[in-house]
C-alpha cells in the first residue's frame, strides 16, 4: 500500500545533481545528533503532525520495546520535558519542524526527499537485525 514510498520515484534521477542546501548546514547535523530527535523526525514522516504528548509516548514506547520493561508516567514526563526544552527547539531551529509552543501540534517541514532518506536510514540503521 505504501509502495510509492519505496525505492526511487520519478525524482530519483533528476535530483542527483540537485542536493538540498540543508545538507551543507552544520545545524542539520547537530539536529540529527540525537537518537530521540531522529526518532521524532522518523515518526513525523508518517503522521506529519503530532502533539508533544504523542511524541513523548512514541519515544517512551520505543524505549520500552528495547528494554522489555514498562515505561511509567514519570518516564514519559521526563521525555516530554526533554522534548519541550531541548529536542523540539533544536529541530525547529534547523528548519526541520514547525514548533510554536508545547501546546500546539508539532509539524514536519516540507523536506527534500534526500533529507527524508537520510532520516529514514539513520533510524533503520539502529534497529537490531531480525534475521
Amino acid at each position: 500500500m505504501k509502495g510509492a514510498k519505496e525505492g526511487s520515484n520519478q525524482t530519483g534521477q533528476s535530483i542527483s545533481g540537485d542536493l538540498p542546501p540543508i545538507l551543507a548546514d552544520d545545524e542539520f547535523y547537530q539536529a540529527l545528533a540525537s537518537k530521540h530527535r531522529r526518532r521524532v523526525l522518523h515518526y513525523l514522516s508518517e503522521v506529519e503532525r503530532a502533539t508533544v504528548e504523542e511524541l513523548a509516548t512514541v519515544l517512551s514506547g520505543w524505549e520500552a520495546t528495547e528494554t522489555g520493561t514498562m515505561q511509567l508516567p514519570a518516564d514519559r514526563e521526563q521525555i516530554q520535558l526533554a522534548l519541550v526544552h531541548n529536542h523540539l527547539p533544536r529541530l525547529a531551529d534547523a528548519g526541520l519542524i514547525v514548533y510554536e509552543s508545547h501546546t500546539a501540534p508539532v509539524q514536519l517541514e516540507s523536506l527534500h526527499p534526500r533529507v527524508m532518506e537520510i532520516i529514514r536510514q539513520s533510524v533503520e540503521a539502529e534497529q537490531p537485525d531480525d534475521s
Partner: protein
Amino acid sequence: MLDSLLSDLRGQKQRCTVYRSGEPTEIERWLATHGVAIESRSMPPGGPDPFIELETDGELVGIIGIEALEALIEPPIRRPGERAEIAEGYRVLFEMLEKTVFTGMSRRDFLAVSREIEDRAFRVGSGCLQVAFQTLSTMKSQTSVYRTLATETDLDIHVYAVEDWTPPAISGITYHTEAAERFEPYWALAYDGGPDETQACGLLAKQHSDEYTGFWTNDAAHVEEIGTALSSA
C-alpha cells in the same frame, strides 16, 4: 449488587492505543473482541516493534512493548510468589487489567480462572471460599474437587446455587439454595485469602446465552464486595 459491581467497573474508562507499522497484533484483536476500547496509530516501517499505551480515566498507566505485555498477562492470575517480584509499575498494570470487564468470554476462560482461585485457596488451606455455581447440577462434575478442598483443608466453603440436584453432604461445605435464584445468571468465586489478605482473589461473570461478561481480581476490596453480595442473600 453483583450487577452494580460489574457496571461500576465497566464505567471506568480504560483506553489502549497500539502503535505499530504492520497488521493488527493478536492481543489487539483479542482486547477489541472482548470489549476493551482500543485504537491504533500507524508507525513508519523500520521503527520499533509494536507497543501499547494504557490509560485509565484519561491518566497514563504505562507504555509497554506488545511482546512483553503478552508474556505478562498469561496466565490471567499470577501466583503470589511471582507477584512479589513484580515491580510497582507492573502492579498498576495488573490492577488495570484485573479490573477490566471482559465481554464475549467462554465458559472455558472462566473455568481456567476458577481453577486458579480454588488452587490458591487449597494451598493457603484456611479462610472462606464462596462459590456461586448457578445451579447445583453444575457442581456435579466438580464434586471431587470440592470434597478435597473441604476435607483436606480448614477452608470454610459456601456454595450458592439453585437446587436442581441433591449434592452429597460434605463436612466443611454449606449449601445455600434459598434465594439463590437471584444469582442464577452469575458465576462467582470469592476467596478471602484466610490469614493473608494479599492471597484474596475472586471472579465475577454474568452469563448471556453462551457467553460470559466479567472480570477476575486479586484486589481484596473487590473480593470482599463479591463475597458480601453472595452472603447477603
